[in-house]
């Protein structure tokens, strides 16, 4: 053959095709023949022709005698399924303990995933159940504070209306006052008074939000100023039915504001997955009636603003129009407006320095991740236990392979085994979910109900199948790779790779568990730090209740009368309780104020004796006193004085809303907002007109008695009203409800993760002891002590745990640091947490191992060496 032909080769693709369908035992001779043909053709024909001929020859081998038998035609899938099922059940029966471990682990893991999945779905659908929901937007305001920004939902009263008038892309706009502002408001008809939470809205409210109206037309119901639209529930509570409610007049009142209204419509109760909850809505014009002296201008912020944009509006250009709009209305600036989709705010509601910084979505991600890890840990157990037990099944595999089972049928056998177990786990998991759902709802403050839908069923089954696939894949690939000849020769050297894979998986499991332990410790510590931090005022033994009825007119005399009661130390009124941001203003000016640098002050109206009652420390000057006329005096906090840059503030005059006010005192900073926030500038103002809250201090140890006395006095003093009081420390803790929920949830999930990891370790130890039975017997005969053997066995696992600890500590440090950053005041990350986590993990490992190793004490060398 000519040398140059050597370089021309038949098409590799054709060769591949041939090898794919050709029987393996024919490959050599056929390839040889085809090669000879190819090269002989090359001698007197073109390479192209020779190649074409090669293809022709390949296709001519598509004859029954030469083509492989493909499994597709050979196997009866149903028969194999039955066969695999039988083998799986037999195997389960044979290895009961590892089956139980897998079942418990996988079902707990699946239950976690299902619960979290339900929660995530519920959160995800929040605020998304409106028609044209994607056209509804919310306006937020970035206020400049110092050199940063604070993002607020409160907007000027007129914003919604004016935006809808002036920007053509906006179809409708409505102001909306969060219902919790008016949650103690009353709806009454003669002879009946019911507390309900409601909102002031614009007349287009129902054109924006498609809350279903049982009675009334969405274009009309809020047109009239004196109309009110109530929920089905409220209609039943007040009138005993929807029909009965229509057209009736009711009185709305809160504190000493009153207004007469007529029921013009009834809406279906607001669904629970809506962030704005209310029992009634009525026109915001009434708010301006009840609070007549309220300044309405572009720098006074109260309601939220929602609007509906026209279909197909480009939101970016609309956003810049809204920004331009406020620049024209308020050229001196101070804040900027921006627009976000209404449904986004629920999950993405946190803003840092004016920029979007996550929100509930972070928790969603966090818990999805945790649930996923719990499931992975359970899958790892399955992998580890089944590969560890491989030596026991060696002969089974060998016989199967020798008889003619090929790799793929073995893989399908092991996969069906893991599928069977994960299906069984699914049924257990569903039971767990059914039992746990009420508690879960309690912790997450949700009303999740499981309704069977095909999506849910499909989701459940796909999760289960994926679980089965993940947990079965490694054992299936590993076990089916053994060569039968080696098995029977006993040449099965436990492959180093598999051993390392198993160890690696255990390390992964335990690293996750340790990270969870440390994180839970830190979350708990931070929460207790918050709850016990010295806030700068006393919150213990103080109750507060709304000022209503007769008390509103006789605040001072009411206070002097309750002071006489046994167990009551004193009382003082205020605008609201001290918790959270209340009312802010930038309308304070002073000599030397830089007009370019607006300062936002917290405006806190209080009564006499309030500062003393709360034990707020007065640093300079004095608190409000009955001996002075206090109608033009202010008390400021330290931060305010610093922000204003005043020296010797006492006696200085500042200007508030155009009136001169004298600074008479400086108080030490106290935390009126949650500890997420720094302390902001604040001033106290004596303001008996806007007093909504009565604060009463009780004598320590006599709280019960004092409350009984107060309650009795209240009913006689203020007939027709009920005594709805709240302890201040309870109210304080409510600020941290979401943190507490996270702490509780993460505690449970960390618990599950640890439980499952320990179960896996338990199984592995059992297996390791079993495998080393003879070794233990020999050691015992040679005089090794039980303790020595114990050390030997636990040493192996201790090494693994120590590696896990080394991995987990830096990871959890980063996570914790990241989490603590959101608090303006947080604990220090001391080494103690990590030490505690590490020690906890080692203790847990030893405990788990010792449950198994206790068995070695009972081993009689004679028994394990004779069999």
């Amino acid at each position, binding site marked *: 053959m000519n040398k140059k032909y050597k370089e021309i080769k038949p098409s590799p693709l054709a060769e591949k095709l041939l090898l794919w369908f050709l029987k393996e035992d024919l490959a050599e*001779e*056929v390839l040889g*023949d085809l090669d*000879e*043909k190819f*090269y002989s053709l090359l001698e007197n024909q073109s390479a192209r022709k020779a190649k074409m001929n090669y293809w*022709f020859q390949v296709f001519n*081998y598509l*004859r029954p005698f*030469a083509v492989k038998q493909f499994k597709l035609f050979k196997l009866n899938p149903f028969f194999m399924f039955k066969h695999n099922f039988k083998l799986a059940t037999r195997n389960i029966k044979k290895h009961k303990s590892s089956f139980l471990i897998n079942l418990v682990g996988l079902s707990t893991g699946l239950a976690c995933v299902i619960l979290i999945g339900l929660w995530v779905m519920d959160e995800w659908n929040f605020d998304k159940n409106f028609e044209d929901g994607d056209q509804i937007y919310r306006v937020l305001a970035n206020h400049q504070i110092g050199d940063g920004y604070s993002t607020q939902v409160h907007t000027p009263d007129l914003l919604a209306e004016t935006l809808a008038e002036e920007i053509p892309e906006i179809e409708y706009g409505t102001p909306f006052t969060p219902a919790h502002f008016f949650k103690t408001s009353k709806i009454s008809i003669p002879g009946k008074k019911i507390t309900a939470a409601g909102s002031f809205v614009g007349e287009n409210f129902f054109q924006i939000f498609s809350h279903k109206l049982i009675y009334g037309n969405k274009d009309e119901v809020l047109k009239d100023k004196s109309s009110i639209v109530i929920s089905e529930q409220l209609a039943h509570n007040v009138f005993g039915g929807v029909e009965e409610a229509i057209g009736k007049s009711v009185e709305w009142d809160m504190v000493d504001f009153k207004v007469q209204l007529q029921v013009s419509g009834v809406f279906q109760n607001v669904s629970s997955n809506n962030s704005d909850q209310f029992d009634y809505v009525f026109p915001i014009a009434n708010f301006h009636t009840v609070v007549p002296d309220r300044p309405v201008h572009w720098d006074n912020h109260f309601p939220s603003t929602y609007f509906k944009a026209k279909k197909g509006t480009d939101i970016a250009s609309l956003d810049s129009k809204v920004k331009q709009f406020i620049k024209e209305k308020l050229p001196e600036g101070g804040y900027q407006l921006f627009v976000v989709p209404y449904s986004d705010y629920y999950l993405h509601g946190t803003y840092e320095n004016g920029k979007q910084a996550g929100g509930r979505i972070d928790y969603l991600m966090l818990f999805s991740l945790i649930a996923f890890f719990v499931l992975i840990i359970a899958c790892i157990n399955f992998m580890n236990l089944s590969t560890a037990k491989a030596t026991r099944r060696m002969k089974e595999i060998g016989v199967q392979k020798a008889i003619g089972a090929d790799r793929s049928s073995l893989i399908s056998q092991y996969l069906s085994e893991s599928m069977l177990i994960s299906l069984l786990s699914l049924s257990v998991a569903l039971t767990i979910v059914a039992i746990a759902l009420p508690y879960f709802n309690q912790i997450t403050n949700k009303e999740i109900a499981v309704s069977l839908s095909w999506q849910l069923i499909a989701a459940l089954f796909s999760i289960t199948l994926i679980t089965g696939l993940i947990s079965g894949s490694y054992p299936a690939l590993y076990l089916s790779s053994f060569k039968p000849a080696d098995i029977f020769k006993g040449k099965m050297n436990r492959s180093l790779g598999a051993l390392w894979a198993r160890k690696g998986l255990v390390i992964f499991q335990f690293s996750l568990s340790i990270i969870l332990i440390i994180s839970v410790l830190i979350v708990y510590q931070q929460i207790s730090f918050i709850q016990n931090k010295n806030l700068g005022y006393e919150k213990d033994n103080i109750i507060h209740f709304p000022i209503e009825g007769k008390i509103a007119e006789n605040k001072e005399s009411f206070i002097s009368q309750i002071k006489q009661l046994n167990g009551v130390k004193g009382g003082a009124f205020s605008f609201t309780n001290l918790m959270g941001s209340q009312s802010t203003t930038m309308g304070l000016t002073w000599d030397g104020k830089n007009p370019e640098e607006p300062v936002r002050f917290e405006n806190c109206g209080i009564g006499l004796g309030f500062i003393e009652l709360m034990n707020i420390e007065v640093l300079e000057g004095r608190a409000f006193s009955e001996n002075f006329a206090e109608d033009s005096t202010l008390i400021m906090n330290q931060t305010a004085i610093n922000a204003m840059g005043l020296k010797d503030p006492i006696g200085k005059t500042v200007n508030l809303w155009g009136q001169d006010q004298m600074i008479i005192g400086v108080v030490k900073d106290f935390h009126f907002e949650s500890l997420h926030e720094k302390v902001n500038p604040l001033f106290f103002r004596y303001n008996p007109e806007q007093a909504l809250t009565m604060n009463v201090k009780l004598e320590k140890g006599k709280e019960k008695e004092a409350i009984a006395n107060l309650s009795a006095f209240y009913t006689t003093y203020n007939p027709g009203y009920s005594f709805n009081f709240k302890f201040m420390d309870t109210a304080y803790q409510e600020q941290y409800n979401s943190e507490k929920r996270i702490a509780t949830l993460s505690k449970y999930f960390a618990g599950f993760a640890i439980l499952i990891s320990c179960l896996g370790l338990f199984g592995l130890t059992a297996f390791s002891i079993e495998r080393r039975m003879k070794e233990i017997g020999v050691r015992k005969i040679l005089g090794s002590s039980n303790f020595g053997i114990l050390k030997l066995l636990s040493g192996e696992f201790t090494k693994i745990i120590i590696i896990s600890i080394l991995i987990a500590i830096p990871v959890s440090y980063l996570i914790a640091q990241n989490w603590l950053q959101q608090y303006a005041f947080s604990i220090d990350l001391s080494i103690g947490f990590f030490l505690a986590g590490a020690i906890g993990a080692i203790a847990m490992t030893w405990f788990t191992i010792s449950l198994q190793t206790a068995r070695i004490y009972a081993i009689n060398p004679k028994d394990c060496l004779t069999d």
Partner: protein
Amino acid sequence: MLETKLGDFEETILLFVGILNEEAYAFKIGEEFEKQTGRTVSIGAVHSTLSRLADKGFLESEMGDPSTKRGGRRKRIYTITALGQKALKKSRDFKISLWNQFPPFATKKLSTF
């Protein structure tokens, strides 16, 4: 043994096996067939017939030596079995007896055959 009849193409291939002797493998047989008949045939068709003949018991085969021409691969060499010889002979005898009964050729012309 399912089928012991010998088809026409099978008979030709069987004869080529006998002719080529040591060199009787699929590619060579195909080559020889093409040379002597002027018809083209694919190696697959020859191979398929060879394996059918082997199934009928007319051929035996074993792997020969590797050769560099074929990329170091071995070839399968076929040899005719006693049964194969018998079948060939039977077929030839049958044809001759038919020729003998065919009048125009029944006289002298047949002797030149």
